[in-house]
């Protein structure tokens, strides 16, 4: 994506919110952290707290109620202090939960890493093993393991760790598969690293966040499972206390002394709830997408907060007029303009080019015209866009939506990402028609076929039922253009329409756009980084740099006699066929001063 974020000036304070403040911004996660911290602290300090021995029995004093003398939470059926047992039991439960998580994470991650990196037979054997582990109900598996190893807290821990290995193995494998085909892994191989070294020094650091996230979300679950096994009498053995066994012992007394089972139950609830809330918070913080903005989901609608609004001129002539448009991005707590003071006009039947390097703000400009910049972080902070003299941003959201597709249509760079992979192309074109016209399905399909013929797809009758992946890049882009044409728009905004295509295909797509423009009197706004494309297509061109238009004029004039220094340098840097090795000699002086 050619977002203009990279070019924002460094002087403005754009400090990212730190992980801590992000976590604390999330109220539920902060509450979870607080509860967990209190519980954890008390559990840690258990040996030094003024509480009685949790295992000291005193049958005479049995089943004291809550708030009785010397026993704040009462006593159980053997006269043991429930508060003491609760604190010591929590200690045990947390310790078991954490160690089971650590074991499961270690073994599961290694399995996931190896099978995701090795693929093939190794992957198959390991993952089918994991599948078998997952196919058993977890409690049955844990019971079987404990049955073999014998009851006891340590064996319960092993059982729970084994049961949870698939979680880690599958998550880690998924991420590793993606990473293993990345170029930096190939690069490490060419640098002489062995497979094991690549796996643990190149891939593992990139997988680590996933492991941490999975750990934070499974600890609570593991504590619950430990409690479950202890409840069944397979975990902690008497007299050792743990939350699950306390619950199990209290179960028999549920009617005459409910507090004996309710108190450990509440503790489990508080513990697991706080860990899960915190785990969700941690996941949100580590998610890079949520980090980049704030913790809200971006909406497809751009927020308008216009500080300046040029007056409506009388007697507008051009079909599209952009006047001092400014779009800004929120970065941290500051708002930084990405494009400033953009003004241009587009006449009927004209092709206007917007050219610039990555980060120059050309795509942001294109998306801003119909309010398609995602908010947050994008906000339109000034200027107007007039279509046939009418201010677009003064319209309601439904009003703007009515313009999209009908009056103004977009063609994007990569048709593979803009076409839905699971729908047939014909259905997608028909959908575009039906969004604006009330016609029957069969008629829409007929029109879709006609459109496909229009954009030069042979055998449109058969290809209408093809899926996007069954078509070549050039054909997909033709479908993209057909969708744009679906409602006879007056303006087409084409954002790098041929960048992803081969030159021979590019030439054909550009010809198609040119023909359509002449035939239908379309106004074409062409966004590109390629001077060759501009030279071939555009009547007029604007050169963008760092979010501003530095030069605007007739294409022939701009290319032949560029006025701005930047344009001159850019054009000089474009190699021309026929220049040969003279090209390098001609650009060498331009960068002579760059040498340190």
């Amino acid at each position: 994506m050619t977002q203009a974020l990279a070019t924002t000036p460094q002087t403005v304070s754009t400090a990212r919110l730190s992980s801590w403040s992000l976590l604390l911004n999330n109220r539920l996660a902060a509450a979870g952290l607080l509860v967990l911290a209190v519980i954890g602290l008390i559990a840690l300090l258990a040996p030094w707290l003024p509480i009685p021995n949790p295992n000291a029995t005193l049958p005479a004093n049995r089943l004291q109620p809550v708030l009785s003398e010397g026993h704040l939470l009462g006593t159980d059926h053997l006269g043991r202090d429930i508060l003491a047992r609760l604190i010591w039991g929590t200690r045990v439960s947390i310790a078991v939960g954490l160690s089971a998580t650590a074991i499961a994470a270690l073994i599961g991650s290694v399995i996931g890493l190896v099978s995701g990196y090795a693929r093939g037979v190794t992957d198959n054997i390991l993952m089918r093993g994991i599948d078998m582990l997952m196919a058993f109900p977890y409690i049955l598996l844990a019971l079987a393991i404990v049955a073999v190893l014998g009851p006891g807290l340590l064996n319960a821990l092993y059982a729970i760790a084994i049961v949870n290995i698939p979680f880690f193995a599958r998550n880690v494998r998924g991420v590793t598969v993606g990473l293993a085909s990345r170029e930096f892994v190939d690069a490490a191989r060419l640098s002489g690293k062995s497979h094991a070294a690549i796996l643990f020094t190149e891939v593992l650091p990139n997988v680590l966040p996933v492991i941490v996230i999975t750990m934070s979300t499974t600890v609570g679950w593991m504590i619950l499972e430990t409690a479950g096994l202890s409840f069944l009498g397979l975990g902690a053995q008497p007299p050792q206390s743990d939350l699950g066994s306390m619950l199990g012992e209290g179960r028999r007394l549920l009617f005459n002394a409910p507090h004996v089972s309710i108190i450990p139950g509440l503790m489990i609830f508080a513990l697991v709830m706080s860990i899960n809330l915190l785990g969700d918070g941690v996941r949100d913080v580590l998610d890079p997408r949520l980090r980049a903005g704030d913790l809200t989901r971006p909406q497809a609608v751009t927020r308008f907060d216009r500080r300046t609004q040029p007056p409506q001129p009388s007697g507008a002539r051009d079909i599209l007029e952009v006047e001092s448009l400014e779009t800004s991005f929120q970065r941290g707590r500051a708002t930084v303009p990405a494009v400033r003071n953009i003004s241009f006009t587009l006449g009927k039947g004209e092709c206007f080019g917007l050219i610039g390097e990555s980060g120059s703000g050309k795509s942001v400009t294109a998306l801003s015209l119909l309010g398609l910049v995602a908010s947050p972080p994008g906000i339109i902070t000034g200027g107007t866009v007039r279509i046939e003299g009418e201010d677009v941003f003064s319209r309601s959201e439904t009003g703007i939506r009515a313009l999209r597709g009908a009056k103004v249509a977009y063609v994007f760079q990569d048709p593979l990402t803009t076409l839905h992979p699971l729908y047939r192309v014909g259905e997608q074109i028909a959908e575009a028609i039906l969004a604006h016209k009330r016609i029957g399905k069969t008629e829409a399909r007929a029109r879709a076929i006609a459109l496909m013929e229009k954009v030069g797809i042979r055998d449109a009758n058969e290809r209408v039922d093809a899926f996007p992946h069954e078509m070549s890049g050039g054909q997909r882009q033709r479908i993209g253009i057909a969708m744009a044409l679906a409602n006879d728009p007056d303006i087409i905004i084409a954002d790098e329409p041929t960048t992803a295509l081969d030159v021979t295909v590019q030439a054909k797509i550009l010809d198609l756009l040119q023909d359509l423009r002449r035939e239908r009197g379309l106004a074409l706004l062409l966004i590109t980084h390629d001077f060759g494309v501009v030279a071939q297509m555009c009547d007029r061109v604007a050169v963008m740099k760092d979010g501003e238009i530095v030069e605007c004029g007739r294409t022939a004039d701009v290319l032949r006699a560029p006025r701005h220094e930047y344009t001159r340098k850019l054009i000089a840097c474009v190699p021309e066929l026929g220049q040969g090795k003279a090209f390098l000699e001609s650009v060498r002086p331009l960068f002579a001063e760059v040498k340190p």
Partner: protein
Amino acid sequence: MSDAIVVTNLRKTFGGRRNILGSASHSVHAVKGVSFALRQGETLAIVGESGSGKSTIARMLVGLETPSSGTMEIDGQDAATLRARGSKAFGRTIQYVFQDPVASLNPRKTIDKILDVPLRLLRNYDGSTRAARKRELLDAVKMPKDTLERYPHEFSGGQAQRIAIARALAAEAKIMVLDEPVSALDVSVQAQVLLLLDELKSRFGLSYLFISHDLAVVESVSDRVAVMYLGEMVELDTAANLFAAPRHDYTRELIASAPRLNAASLQDP
């Protein structure tokens, strides 16, 4: 002196393996019997569109893929022998520069660590030599000294490509395979990287196999040009001859399709 690379009748077929039931899976002939030679100190360009097999050739030459048949001789040594001696032997003889510079650098490693690997594993230098070499390499690709402590995401595409080139240079191999080294870069940055590559070539006596889809770029850097079409090499000639008088129809179409700056003056004078 022998040629840097000699490739004879090289083939690569993906898929086509027989499964348990004995039926062959769908196979793709990516490279169909290609032969060429890269001379010492030369830049040989391979041009072609997506799917023409040019990247597959590059990946086979550096040992990332194994050819289905045919022989490759790299710096006078048979590639199969090199492969048998392990990936390190390959890395010392031939190096590779990737198309997407940012993706080819591990996002969680500092540049210091990234450059350290080839120096340590391929050259076996001790600590102080490595530190000195890293400074020299950064100097050669014109990057500032503080580059070492920084992470890949702190650099622009052009800077990242300089770092990737420095990593390839670190192995001190004399043959470089450049797979679309400038196609992900903006034009002004592209020109700078081309200049840098040209300079490094004469300074270190390198031979380049330059893979690209951009004819104008290819013409400006290469001595000879090979055109790939659907896995076959349809034409191989000196750059001057090929662009002046293309013999194959496909080459002619490629040249005709390339957008030109002077089109505007032709369109409306």
